[in-house]
């Protein structure tokens, strides 16, 4: 039978009706989740209300099991890129295949960190903490633990796109040739601590590091946190006292998770941003994170301003190198770091990580440009 390639408007309308009637039951939960992830505001409230109503109406059809089972099957096949989901799927799989509901010991051991109770975790930092006025230009870094039995130091790189773009690339490159350092990637773009309903770092970080016990964690996070959120059913506007309190608690809880098992944490502050409005938000977030981090003995707050800011600590996009080259320090979006900017920001951190055993107390002043040292090591290795 020969069919026409063309359709009429009523046929298009019928196809769209079939599409809508099928997609809504299949995706009603997905739509609700999408609405919940929108930035808090009137539009998000309307979307949550509408998709919530839709979900309630369609729930009795029980079509959601298609989605849940589909995702669970994909997770069991190792398809998912979400560590927490993968771990949860593995747990379900082990318990169902072993015929009892207790998770298998091996799977439990795979997560080396216990997720602290948020309220308990914040006891060390009773809120509200008065915000510290400003961060010092340089922070001494605590020595890393000595290398035992020839095992490399394990370093976790955690955070959002501020870690994923530029910074992690440089840190991975410059430590690749060092046999004493092993790096775990525990970063995820588009995340933060303001919206655990979208991405919960308290659940995801333990899944990301698995059974590893990092000796050090370098964390760069907060670029997406300049937004309001809902806490206990109340909308907290960004920068309000209530917002500050809750955000401090979240940072404290996250920090206590990172420092479990004795890991040393270096918290990289947000660099100055090109947009004045965004810069103000970043400054607020920096003040909060510095306040919390500076009160934690195992953690240091790494000030980005002396490295990638100008003389007065403002946004700087280009620099002139000693050999006269002009290089870009920031990505064209005016937010993230370029490779050169990340190198400037992290050169002392790289020296600290690559410090030969026995570890010496590293300071912000590098003894030798790390790129040069890493290249030498790289060439040595290549020659071998």
């Amino acid at each position: 039978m020969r069919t026409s390639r063309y359709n009429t408007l009523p046929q298009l309308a019928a196809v769209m009706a079939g599409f809508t009637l099928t997609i809504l039951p299949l995706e009603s939960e997905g739509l609700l989740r999408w609405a919940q992830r929108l930035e808090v505001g009137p539009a998000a409230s309307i979307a949550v209300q509408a998709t919530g109503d839709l979900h309630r109406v369609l729930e009795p059809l029980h079509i959601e099991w298609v989605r849940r089972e589909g995702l669970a099957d994909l997770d069991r096949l190792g398809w998912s890129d979400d560590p927490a989901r993968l771990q949860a799927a593995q747990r379900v799989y082990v318990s169902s295949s072993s015929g009892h509901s207790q998770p298998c010991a091996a799977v439990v051991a795979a997560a080396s960190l216990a997720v602290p109770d948020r309220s308990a975790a914040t006891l060390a930092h009773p809120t509200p903490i008065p915000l510290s006025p400003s961060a010092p230009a340089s922070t001494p870094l605590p020595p890393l633990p000595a290398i035992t039995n020839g095992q490399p130091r394990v370093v976790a790189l955690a955070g959002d796109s501020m870690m994923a773009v530029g910074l992690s690339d440089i840190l991975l490159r410059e430590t690749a040739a060092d046999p004493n350092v092993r790096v775990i990637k525990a970063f995820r773009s588009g995340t933060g601590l303001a919206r655990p309903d979208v991405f919960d770092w308290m659940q995801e970080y333990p899944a990301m590091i698995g059974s590893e016990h990092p000796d050090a964690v370098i964390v760069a996070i907060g670029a997406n946190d300049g937004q309001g959120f809902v806490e206990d059913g109340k909308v907290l506007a960004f920068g309000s006292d209530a917002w500050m309190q809750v955000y401090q608690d979240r940072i404290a809880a996250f920090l206590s998770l990172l420092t479990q098992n004795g890991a040393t944490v270096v918290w990289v502050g947000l660099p100055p941003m090109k947009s004045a409005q965004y810069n103000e938000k970043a400054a607020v977030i920096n003040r909060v994170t510095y306040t919390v981090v500076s009160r934690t003995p195992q953690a240091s707050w790494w000030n980005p301003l002396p490295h990638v800011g100008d003389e007065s600590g403002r946004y700087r996009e280009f620099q002139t190198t000693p050999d006269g080259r002009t290089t870009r320090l920031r990505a064209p979006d005016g937010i993230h770091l370029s490779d050169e900017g990340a190198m400037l920001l992290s050169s002392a951190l790289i020296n600290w990580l690559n410090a030969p055993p026995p570890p010496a107390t590293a300071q912000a002043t590098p003894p030798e440009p790390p790129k040069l040292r890493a290249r030498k090591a790289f060439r040595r290795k290549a020659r071998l």
Partner: protein
Amino acid sequence: MLFPTVEFGLFFASVMLIAWSLHRFNCLHKLFLLLASYLFYGFWNWSYVPLLFLLSLFSGVIARCIQASSSQRLRKIWLFAGVVVCLATLGYFKYTSFFFTIGLGLWAHVARPPGISIPSPLLPLGVSFFVFHAISLMMDAHRGKLKQAVRLGDALLYVAFFPQLIAGPILRASSFIPQLTSPRNPATIRVNRAFLLIVAGLFKKVVISNLLATRLVEQVFAAPQAYGRGDALLAIYGYAAKIYCDFSGYTDIAIGCAMLLGYRFPRNFNAPYSATNPQDFWRRWHISLSSWLRDYFYIPLGGSRGSALRTGSNLMITMLLGGLWHGAGWTFVIWGALHGFYLIAHRIWNSVPWQSVARLRQTSPWRWAARLLLFHAVCLGWVFFRAPSFDIAFALLHRLTIPGRITLASVPVVLALFLGLAGQYQPLRWRKALECEVGCWHTLLRGAAFAVAIFAIELLGPSGVAPFIYFRF
């Protein structure tokens, strides 16, 4: 607003509904599409909507002036002025800091460079595309390819039409503006083809491209030093598949969306990795850009009408500019130079007069060897295209000589790589047969099948959607 998002789905459904309800009133219909396009663009950044409006208005006015001018000289002057303004706009936003850094670098060889602050404006989304659309409008007016006088409203919609606005395909004014002159015919909508294109595009972008990006390519290109030969090779092949799926996926969705609104867009990709020579590759890869460069740049330069040396230099200049169009960086220039070199080498090889060589070229084994050779030459170019610096590009190429086991070849990665590359060899008749088969189904069932396909794509895709590569161009 990215295509594979709920926001775009809701936006497009609303636009389609309203646009078809206005189709009898062509002016109102076009005005609505224009406002929807500005809304689409403003979703990214409202402050750049005036730039889009002014540039398209400017090109429309110039096109009218060209059409109204009787003297050839005056037409040329108008065209020259229009092209200069468009290129200056593109240059300001895209290349200012690049050329400033080059200038300061050269200055540093002579004296200490002055401490000036380098202007670095935020790059408007899709600026390279809408500037090329504006130029196409003026060029087509100058060449007399537009039969009727250009209406300013049509010019505004041609440049800003949202399906092609931020990542192409680059439409010719002569092919699109005539579509705006009459109301869309509600009896000739290619619904099945449009939905198949949208589903295929989403699958390529959300599943294949995103999987390869997050699990293979980004990891290896970030720190090639941490990987051995196996992973480096896998990442290079992965990027070849990823960039194809990313970009062709976007244009498939764009073509499908335009089709559902009753408009025709040209095909932008045609199984490029099945090409057997560089010329063939550029007839299959980003067809709308390569034909734009050919018609508006290479041929006015002289094309292949002069000596072999002149033709070679025209090819090289065109490809260098094509490279620079993709990004303001030396790695893009090298990418363009490599392709210029491939095209010149192919011309030289083609001009070998020996009969035995001519016979050899016709054999199947030779064609497969040529295909394989070309694919690897293209992959070499992709290394420079993707790498943020020459250090990284050379480090990655160096890793190809360092033994190391493959650590990133998970089942999803291998499957995505296979589908991304082998998918190009699917016979065209399969696609036609599928469209024909779907056309036999009941309309409600067709809609349900498309919904299930999109649902499956959503489940299969990684949780975060990486932005389209071509947005930054």
